[in-house]
């Protein structure tokens, strides 16, 4: 495998698509739209996993792809939407850091990710290296989203896209044992459940998902 070959181009294309979707997550102004972008990212992730399975001839990656497709592209967005509807959330995103600045910051993070990965992984296969750079960017962008959005749901979304980045990195590595994918997928579900529980509790307590409202309730006030 190497540059200019089909497997590489496709994998790279898919990774790039995920990165692009991460930027769209940052760009969106409406919660519903954010969720659908997350779903799209999950779908692309599934495709990427499947492609890697095909390239590496590793059947367990198909399973990963399946899980990703079902969970990330299907269940989670559905659950989130249901939650939004159930809790009748405000539609707006009200970012702590403006859309424009967060995009700029995102570009900076991508630059950092490439700077860190490209020069160093000379030993590893080019494929993994490229994917690693992309995955790293996706992860960083996910974190950026978590810290620039006030809404609890959006923070969960950030976490999800961060996990997408993880899986992307994981499938990029040839011969990664199945345990990781499985556990990742399982834990993503668990995380979602816990998150849901708390979102309901927060909602029930504070009639809002703006986590800033939690702040005054730190123990040891005054």
């Amino acid at each position: 495998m190497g540059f200019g070959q089909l497997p590489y181009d496709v994998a790279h294309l898919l990774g790039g698509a995920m990165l692009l979707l991460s930027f769209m997550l940052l760009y969106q102004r409406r919660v519903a739209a954010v969720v659908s972008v997350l779903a799209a990212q999950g779908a692309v992730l599934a495709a990427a996993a499947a492609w890697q399975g095909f390239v590496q001839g590793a059947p367990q990656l198909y399973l990963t792809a399946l899980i990703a497709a079902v969970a990330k592209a299907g269940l989670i967005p559905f659950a989130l939407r249901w939650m939004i509807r159930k809790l009748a959330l405000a539609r707006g995103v009200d970012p702590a850091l403006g859309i424009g600045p967060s995009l700029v910051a995102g570009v900076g993070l991508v630059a950092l990710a490439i700077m860190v990965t490209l020069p160093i992984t000379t030993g590893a296969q080019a494929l993994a290296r490229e994917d690693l750079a992309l995955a790293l960017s996706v992860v960083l962008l996910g974190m950026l989203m978590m810290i620039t959005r006030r809404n609890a749901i959006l923070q969960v979304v950030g976490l999800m896209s961060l996990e997408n980045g993880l899986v992307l990195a994981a499938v990029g590595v040839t011969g990664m044992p199945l345990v990781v994918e499985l556990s990742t997928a399982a834990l993503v579900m668990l995380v979602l459940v816990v998150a849901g529980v708390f979102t309901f509790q927060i909602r029930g307590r504070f009639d809002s998902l703006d986590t800033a409202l939690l702040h005054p309730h730190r123990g040891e006030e005054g």
Partner: protein
Amino acid sequence: MPAEFPLAWALVFLPWAGAALLGFLPRERVAALVNIGVSAASFLLALLLLAEPVGVQGWTRLDALNLPLVLLSFLIGLTTAVYSYGALAAETLDPLRLRAFHVAFQVFMGAQALALLADNLGVMWVAIEIATLASVLMVGLHGTPAAIEAAWKFFILCGVGIALALLGTIILSLAARPVVGEEDALSWAVLREVAARCDPGVLNLAFVFLLVGYGTKAGLVPLHAWLPDAEAEGPIAISAVLSGLLLNAALQAVVRVKAVVGAHPETVPPGALLLAFGLASVLVAAFALWRRRDARRFFAWSSILHMGLAATGFGIGGPAGHLAGLLHMLGHSLAKSAVFFGIGAAVRLRGSQRIADLGGLCASYPALGWALVTGILAVAGLPPFALFASEFLLVTEVAATHPWVILPLGLGLLVAVAAKIHTLQLLCFGDPGPGTPPAAGPEKLHWPSLGPIWLHLVLALLLGVALPGPLRAMLGEAAGVVG
């Protein structure tokens, strides 16, 4: 027992089976007793590990580093269960939440065992994640605003942390992939062997993510924000197991990874990074202690301090450094959980966990008061308890090898000890402040409350100055395992 089902897994699944059982037990008393029973059984099982051969077995490993930690974990699990038997009755919990607590507790214990015993880094990661989620549930158990805030912060921060740790793990295996042939690229044993041949750049990248990821779990400054609030909410048992067990598991993970990355000569020295985090934790926590008004949060911050000290020990490395770090982890778990037991009893009696409301314990409840005095002295690292020994070794070793580190370290230690003495006197000495409920007749404290405290303190004492030969040999060996 058959090799394909080693004792290690039994240690994991026994508590989980117990959790499943507890899930269906409606009666509170029975549940608490069963909880104790399961904990006792798994403690005995853990004792059997002493007879096990050291080495890797599938996904698990048993060596001198994690053996004492496992034993300690199940011991504290047992004492915590015993303590909760008396304590939970006073907690205002509806049966459902109580059941949830017992289930989560046992799940946590199983995951803890797995996290300590895992050889496969992936498995270790999974275990720590499960333990985290279980403790998140326990933290949020009360459902008060403060509890929800703490739990949410815990969940978000550790969720991110764990994700970063996973990324680090993946990158690590990516680094090892080219050089391990057919072997498991995530096995710690394998990684230590091949690390020297890996690409240093990838190792660096992996270590950064693993350090930040597991460091968040270990509550190292500046990744600590979740810890004080998480340890201060939920049943007191949480404080005990969080500071006593989960932090150790996370720090042990960091240390094992450091051992791998450090095995390569050209990497950015991982010890230096760990040392920096450790010193930052010591200094920040030492000064933060002076601003605490909430007893449980005070001791949560002191957990950050002690994790920082242990990290410093592992950071300077060398047999002495590692020994100091390990000894500090063990001693801290014992002493800190003892103090939390005492604080919990006091909070129960006084109905508040503000230091101002707890004042004058020695006057109103002498037995509890003096037990707490002893415990806090032990936590403050005063002789003759284990933390004195470990801090002695740490400081002397630092002075011998990294003299310039002694300034921040000594400053932090001094400020922290002063803060603890200050709080100790506020809590235990003087007359009970106005507004505190008077001691209702004879002290209503029975052995489940005081017994664990003294047991822990006696063990900390032995660990400090009277370590039996075999244990001493094991600790020395443990220092070598990651050396």
